[in-house]
């Protein structure tokens, strides 16, 4: 009595392929690199297949084991999850090409299985419609990410990994207690069923508090962001690209999914989304100011992630009235930030490898020898700053529009100020691309594939500036933001 509305294999392949790939890479370490690239490429193809199929048949739903919602686990993909899957595939593929040249023999055999399991966890998370299953994918993702961060070895990487692991575990356990309360309150862990049965009772408020705090900790929003900069900055470059672009957004995606469906009766109340908006605004300002103060490039980029995440949280207060427009803005910001931030971290990786250091003060000798990397960093910077023509600009425009329609001048000021601060710290780095610098004495050549991976991602972020209409129509599949009935 399987309730498979669609028989296409794409959704299932998205999960089984990386799992199988990861295991084979583990058994056969010598072939890890080739296998890894093949697996990531086939996952990218499956995402395109899923997108193609969803364009005409709409939402993708798949009951695992054929048992159906309350008993079994459902896989569910609508426009929002499809967008996140697309982002994961694009950034994943570029980072894989980059990593093929980045890691030596020894680390490569360890990088590929961990990365493929992380990819499996991300795909499983974006497809899952069961909150306990999401807990297991969170753990899978957390452990894989921590192992990847610790791959670099060394005092800072290990410190960052430990701090990240403790934060991730605490976040997951808080989330799990929320799941326990919801299950015992309403007898199911399926998101769709919960959305029907949930009422504004104390159990739901407690679940919102616990799961919310857990997810805020994993998304590194302002007061709980302490673990992100050391972890993202001291990890190897491709890993920090994956963390900043994808892993941090996974918990934001889940918070958004729960906010829109499970906690829907509660969000009418002013208090909660104002708090989230406040946290977002403080994240934007605090992250940008901290980024401006950094003397190390990767730390600057990591704090920029803290700031850009703050932008996405501004959508919560705005969504009260502007509904779909605010969520579209947040989704678009997430998409373009993923591409731009991944490009920036890869570019920083190139600079680190070529010059041996990432101190911003004497970056000029390095950045001028790598024109492609400088171009990648500049184009990614354009998107982070939100200057046209870039995806960041479209996200900023939609968010500003949503804010101005409601006359929220405080959020308008934060968005504009955030953009200016972003310009300040991006140009602080770019300024060094034009000095008369002498040649770096000992430098390590950077393979072309690494530079082109960064540049292609940055170009993607800029091209996003022209693809708003198709992307937003893609996000609209299955009406994730409840556009059909505009809340009062």
């Amino acid at each position, binding site marked *: 009595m399987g309730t498979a509305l669609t028989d296409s294999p794409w959704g299932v392949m998205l999960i089984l392929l990386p*799992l199988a790939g990861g295991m084979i890479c583990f058994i056969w370490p010598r072939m890890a690199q080739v296998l890894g690239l093949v697996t990531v490429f086939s996952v990218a193809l499956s995402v395109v297949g899923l997108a193609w199929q969803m364009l005409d048949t709409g939402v993708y739903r798949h009951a695992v084991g054929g048992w159906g919602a309350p008993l079994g686990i459902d896989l569910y993909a609508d426009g929002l999850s499809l967008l996140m899957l697309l982002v994961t595939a694009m950034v994943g593929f570029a980072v894989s090409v980059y990593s093929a040249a980045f890691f030596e023999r020894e680390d490569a055999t360890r990088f590929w299985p961990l990365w493929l399991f992380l990819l499996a966890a991300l795909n499983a998370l974006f497809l899952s419609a069961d909150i306990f299953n999401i807990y297991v994918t969170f753990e899978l993702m957390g452990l894989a990410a921590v192992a990847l961060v610790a791959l670099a070895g060394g005092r800072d990487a290990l410190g960052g990994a430990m701090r990240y692991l403790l934060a991730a575990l605490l976040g997951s356990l808080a989330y799990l207690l929320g799941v326990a309360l919801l299950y015992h309150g309403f007898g199911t862990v399926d998101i769709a069923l919960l959305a029907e049965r949930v009422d504004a009772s104390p159990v739901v408020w407690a679940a919102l508090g616990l799961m919310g705090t857990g997810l805020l900790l994993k998304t590194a929003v302002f007061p709980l962001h302490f673990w992100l900069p050391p972890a993202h900055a001291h990890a190897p470059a491709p890993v920090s690209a994956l963390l900043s672009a994808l892993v941090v957004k996974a918990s934001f995606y889940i918070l958004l999914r729960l906010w829109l469906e499970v906690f829907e009766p509660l969000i009418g109340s002013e208090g909660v989304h104002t708090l989230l908006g406040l946290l977002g605004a403080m994240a934007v300002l605090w992250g940008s100011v901290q980024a401006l103060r950094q003397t190390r490039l990767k730390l600057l980029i990591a704090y920029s992630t803290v700031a850009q995440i703050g932008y996405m949280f501004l959508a919560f207060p705005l969504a009260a009235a502007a509904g779909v427009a605010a969520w579209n803005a947040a989704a678009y910001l997430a998409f373009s930030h993923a591409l731009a931030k991944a490009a920036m971290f890869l570019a920083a990786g190139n600079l680190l490898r070529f010059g041996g250091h990432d101190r911003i003060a004497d970056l000029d000798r390095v950045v001028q020898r790598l024109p492609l990397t400088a171009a990648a960093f500049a184009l990614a910077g354009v998107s982070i700053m939100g200057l046209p023509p870039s995806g960041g600009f479209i996200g900023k425009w939609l968010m500003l529009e949503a804010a101005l329609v409601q006359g929220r001048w405080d959020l308008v000021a934060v968005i504009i100020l955030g953009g200016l601060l972003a310009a300040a710290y991006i140009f602080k780095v770019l300024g060094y691309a034009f000095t008369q610098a002498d040649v770096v004495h000992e430098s390590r050549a950077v393979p072309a594939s690494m530079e082109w991976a960064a540049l292609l991602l940055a170009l993607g972020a800029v091209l996003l500036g022209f693809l708003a209409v198709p992307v937003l129509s893609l996000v609209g599949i299955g009406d994730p933001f409840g556009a059909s009935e505009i809340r009062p």
Partner: protein
Amino acid sequence: MEALTLLAWMFDGLLGLGLLWLAWRALTCPDLFRAIVLFIAFGLLMALAWVRLDAPDVALAEAAIGAGLTGALLMAALAKLHPTETNDNLSVQAEISRPKGRLLQWLPVVALLLVSAGLGYVVLSLPPYVTGLSAEVAANLKTSGVDNPVTAVLLNFRGYDTLLEMVVLLLALLGVWSLGGTELHRDTAPGIVLDTLARVLVPLLILVAAYLLWVGGHAPGGAFQAGAVLGAAGVLLLLAGWRPRVGLMAWPLRLMLVAGPGAFVIIAALLYMIEGQLLEFPTAQAGILILVLETAATVSIGLTLAALFLGGRPRNDKGLT
């Protein structure tokens, strides 16, 4: 309302207080070694609580993995943390960091009291009688291929969770191996007692593991409990100084480690070809398929837990790790 005899009520009360007190002592004991021992005791008491709550499968798992193996891991880590300690004086003094200043000291306590009061109120506000999903589980039990409801849920209804969970276990091992670090070394030969104990107990443990695996179909037991017992056998062997021969370390070991999740993925892929649904077991062969999955899972869980206890990296590190 079940007829709460005074005796049962007193037992539960004592057990609850015992749990709280042991946890408090474990967390705030200055001596790390004693803290770990208290934690193991806390685990055993927790197993008692599971029995009291009619959850025998969970009791087995808690005793084997929660208290047993986690305790062993903690002990191994403590040994590696302070290798110089002689056997007798095992106490490791690590000062308890008291937060400075009165506000810092009381703020978390007050905040946590409020949190627990709130959660307590919420838990008490839940309806006293509810059946949850036991009706659906009972209804589909016959077509799930096993009689034990917990195994049915674990392997069939929510098999996808178990697949991911076993990958988590494999991933932990991958993480531990990629971190490298010190391997548990045995400087002195195992004492006569430990040696004979190991020789007697290990085959017995393997037998128990096989039994647990088989009984899981219709009574409390199953892959995870069996795997944990197998893991315990491995730990005992490692403690007795046995180390796998270098040849064994290459791909055969890795194949066995991956057996559990690998079997799951292969069967899932095959079933998908046939049934068109991920992890949908045809009712006729469901029992056999679950047994195959459970056996593979037991092997890989046992080996993984032993390898986690050993730590370090496989020795033949000729770039083949």
